[in-house]
């Protein structure tokens, strides 16, 4: 009965949209404050990354020098052949895989499968750490080749500043995500989410929503990489 009341109170579609936004107390019906706040944080983060990418676009469009050929700059020498963007492609697949395992973890969380949830989150963290490790390798390689924020041997000087700023900020996001994944996964593994009582991550026993909120952040990091991959590496 409670469920049907909920449905009649909150119509779907545009009508529901208008009613939610003009209603008392709470705009985001059936969304916890934690999830709503994570979404609003991600929205603000969207603007941060958008501004980085637009700044990069402005630098690239306004320079007289040729932009370095990313296909060659980021190529990897394997077995006597230069493979363009190989490392970046592997990094992309690693991050997508981690998004997949995260989605599975969220699903297991709502099914209250304690060990599966924690295990999948650890796997997600491992893939994230692998991504950051490959990024460190990439940075090291470029720095050894003489790429600096103020210049590089391949072309336009703004290349280095854009590269370090954008991938550095994204890598920081991944690293923070890995830390939080490990923290939450460890708490779940220990059974803290199945004990009664409120903590900063749950309202009561069996409240696994923190996994979904963590997942939102993690998928966002993957989402940002989709745009960086397209605009910085492929363009």
């Amino acid at each position, binding site marked *: 009965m409670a469920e049907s009341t909920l449905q009649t109170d*909150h119509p779907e579609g545009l009508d529901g949209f208008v009613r939610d936004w003009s209603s008392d107390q709470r705009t985001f019906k059936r*969304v916890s404050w934690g999830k709503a706040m994570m979404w609003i944080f991600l929205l603000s983060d969207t603007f941060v990354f958008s501004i980085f990418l637009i700044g990069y676009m402005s630098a690239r469009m*306004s320079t007289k020098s040729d932009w370095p050929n990313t296909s060659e700059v980021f190529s990897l020498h394997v077995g006597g052949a230069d493979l363009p963007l190989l490392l970046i492609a592997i990094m992309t697949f690693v991050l*997508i895989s981690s998004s997949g395992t995260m989605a599975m973890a969220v*699903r297991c969380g709502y099914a209250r499968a304690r060990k599966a949830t924690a295990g999948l989150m650890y796997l997600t963290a491992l893939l994230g750490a692998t991504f950051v490790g490959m990024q460190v390798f990439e940075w090291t390689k470029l720095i050894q080749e003489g790429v600096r924020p103020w210049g590089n041997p391949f072309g336009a000087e703004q290349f280095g500043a854009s590269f370090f700023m954008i991938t550095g900020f994204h890598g920081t996001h991944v690293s923070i995500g890995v830390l939080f994944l490990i923290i939450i996964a460890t708490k779940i593994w220990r059974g803290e989410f199945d004990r009664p009582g409120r903590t900063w991550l749950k309202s009561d026993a069996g409240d696994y929503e923190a996994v979904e909120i963590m997942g939102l952040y993690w998928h966002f990091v993957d989402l940002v990489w*989709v745009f960086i991959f*397209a605009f910085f590496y492929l363009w």
Partner: protein
Amino acid sequence: MTDTTTLKPPTAHVEGQQHPLKLYFLVWGLLFVLSAFSYLVDYAGLQGLARWSLIIVFMLLKAGLIVAVFMHIAWERLALAYAILLPPLAVLAFLAIMTFESDYTLATRISVFSGH
């Protein structure tokens, strides 16, 4: 009946998200395929309009799948979905402004640095 201290059964979680496993695997697979396609754009050495349009199409498809399915926006109420998805459109206005600005900067640099 409304004792909140007892463990809630899995299906009673009003704010939870439960979707078929098959859907997640499908999206996962599609993201792999689309990433492979974007990579192939570079590998095949496509240039010009074909390159840009393909890169953007694959990018938007990937972004849409992640946001809609992995981040569950497809199942959220419109009040939340619009609050999150509409504001980033302002970025497009900023993008347009900076395109004109960058063109102008380039024109200035060409005329000033050319040595005349």
